[in-house]
């Protein structure tokens, strides 16, 4: 027989849990005398239930006596069958091949969805060119302001920093060869051809790409997208096209600003090295051509399109739970950056072949 006394609460149950063992049954019965228990709550009930289950396993009948009526009736209402742990069925081990297969299928499905989305988007953009009135201009300008104008300070700041760091780091080795004059041209070419567009696109992805995903994701969670569909207003036309248009237009313009502030950063370093202003701009003008600038802006336009399109896609694909918006924004940034990097590589090859 087991005698329990005192408070059968979380503290008491914790102490007793592992220590308690069922004694040998007398004629198949084990009695637990709980008449000195002053208080019993959920944890206490769990302890008593465990003892009863243990009794079941060893084939004896565990009876609890001395509890007050209410607790007793609660105990009686517990269906022990619900708490019997079934023997671990041979767990379905997921083979590596199966998980790889599932991953590939999931990836292909995602690619298919993306392809059909790009098709729909392209069709709608062309249709917009023919029927400009279908765009809600006032809403569009608000989007342009948010994604473009408001991004100007951070773009200019990062551009300046980039030019500064690049010039400074380059000056150190080039000085050894007395070639620090060429810092100017190096900064000019790097920024205008590559870093200006790339850096602008990455900042825009973090800023606008995730914002688009979050906006559309929140609308998905709030059933606003369902509401649009039941009105017969296609979400891609109404929500995505304005944002993609804004992103595509804004990216090259911001890149121009980034380029200029990057050059200013380089200029700053050159001035501290003792070179006059004029020398810097001469070097830049000599080594950087208008073709370089155009290539950079072309890249920027493509990046802008990609990051806005994928940002909106991730937003539309958001789930309906609380974490969905955050996940959509994260996916937008990751996908956006990956696409930009791939596009940058493709452009490098393409432009090289065009020049040759």
């Amino acid at each position, binding site marked *: 027989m087991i005698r329990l006394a005192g408070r059968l609460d979380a503290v008491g149950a914790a102490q007793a849990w592992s220590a308690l063992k069922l004694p040998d049954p007398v004629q198949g019965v084990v009695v637990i005398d709980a008449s000195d228990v002053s208080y019993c709550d959920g944890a206490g009930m769990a302890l008593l239930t465990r003892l009863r289950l243990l009794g079941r396993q060893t084939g004896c009948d565990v009876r609890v006596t001395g509890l007050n009526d209410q607790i007793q009736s609660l105990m009686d209402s517990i269906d022990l069958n619900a708490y019997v742990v079934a023997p671990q069925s041979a767990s379905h081990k997921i083979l590596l091949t199966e998980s790889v297969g599932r991953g590939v299928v999931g990836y292909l499905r995602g690619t298919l969805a993306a392809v059909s989305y790009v098709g729909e988007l392209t069709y709608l953009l062309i249709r917009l060119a023919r029927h400009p009135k279908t765009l809600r201009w006032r*809403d569009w300008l608000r989007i342009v302001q948010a994604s473009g104008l408001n991004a100007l300070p951070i773009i200019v700041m990062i551009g300046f920093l980039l030019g500064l760091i690049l010039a400074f780091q380059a000056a150190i080795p080039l000085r050894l060869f007395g070639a620090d004059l060429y810092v100017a041209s190096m900064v000019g070419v790097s920024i205008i051809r590559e870093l200006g567009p790339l850096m602008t696109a990455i900042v825009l992805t973090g800023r606008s790409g995730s914002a688009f995903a979050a906006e559309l994701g*929140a*609308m998905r969670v*709030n*059933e*606003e997208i*369902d*509401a649009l*569909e*039941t*009105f*017969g*207003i296609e979400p891609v036309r109404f929500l995505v096209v304005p944002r993609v248009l804004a992103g595509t237009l804004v990216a090259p313009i911001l890149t121009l600003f980034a380029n200029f502030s990057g050059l200013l950063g380089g200029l700053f370093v050159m001035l501290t090295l003792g070179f006059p202003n004029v020398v810097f701009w001469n070097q830049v003008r000599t080594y950087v051509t208008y073709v370089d600038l155009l290539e950079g802006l072309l890249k920027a336009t493509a990046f802008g399109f990609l990051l806005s399109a994928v940002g909106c896609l991730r937003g539309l694909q958001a789930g309906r739970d609380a974490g969905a918006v955050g996940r959509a924004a994260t996916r937008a940034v990751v996908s956006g950056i990956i696409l930009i990097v791939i596009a940058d590589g493709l452009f490098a090859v393409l432009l090289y072949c065009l020049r040759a």
Partner: protein
Amino acid sequence: MSSATDIMVEVKNLDAGYGDKAILRHISFSVHRGEVLAILGISGCGKSTLLKHMIGLHPPLAGQVLICGEEMATASGSERLRMLRHFGVTYQSGALFGTLSLLDNVRLPIEEFTSLPDAAIDLVARMKLDLVGLRAYADYLPAEVSGGMRKRAAMARAMALDPEILFLDEPSAGLDPVTSSGLDALILRLSDALGMTFVVVTHELASIHAIADRVVFLDREAQGVLAIGTPAELRMQTAHPRVKRFFARAAEEVLEERKG
């Protein structure tokens, strides 16, 4: 619309669900012009799923849904657009467009689908808001008004193009009894004055008794319709225990025990 067609919505042998999993099977009922039909059942029985199938957001797994005699699932793009004109939908959360004012929310469908001049659109939208008692709040954003007002604004938006049928998904969810009965009164007024047909998904007993002409009772275990009839019929004479329990609010059994 031909006056011979008295049946506005017809559900024929519908299997409703997502993917390959059917939540409801062999659902059949019809909604007549001018009536208020309530779709009820306990939480999780598939009411909202059924509604999504009826408004064309999901194609049926089997069976058909006919709006004014035509099937939406097999319709082409432009036909579908025309069929969408027949009905309006309000969602559980209101689903108003957050960046637009209440007035602009109501204006949106009118701007998109009619070529009325701007002044006319403005007037029509304000009249719709007036109909639901929100004329003074036309320029407020959805986040700036209460939940009950959002629901009313959503109804105004759903009615913007004067549809013949209105689908309401849990209109009283989260509302206090006073606001909820105000919404019920509005539904009755619109039904009487404009002859609109209402399909209301709900589990609020008070609303059902106040507004419903007929009730479709869905059941999770049976995965189908347990009963169709007037609220009085379902409460009194029906044989099925689960329906009776719903109407009698089974919690009363527990309350009885405590008293006794």
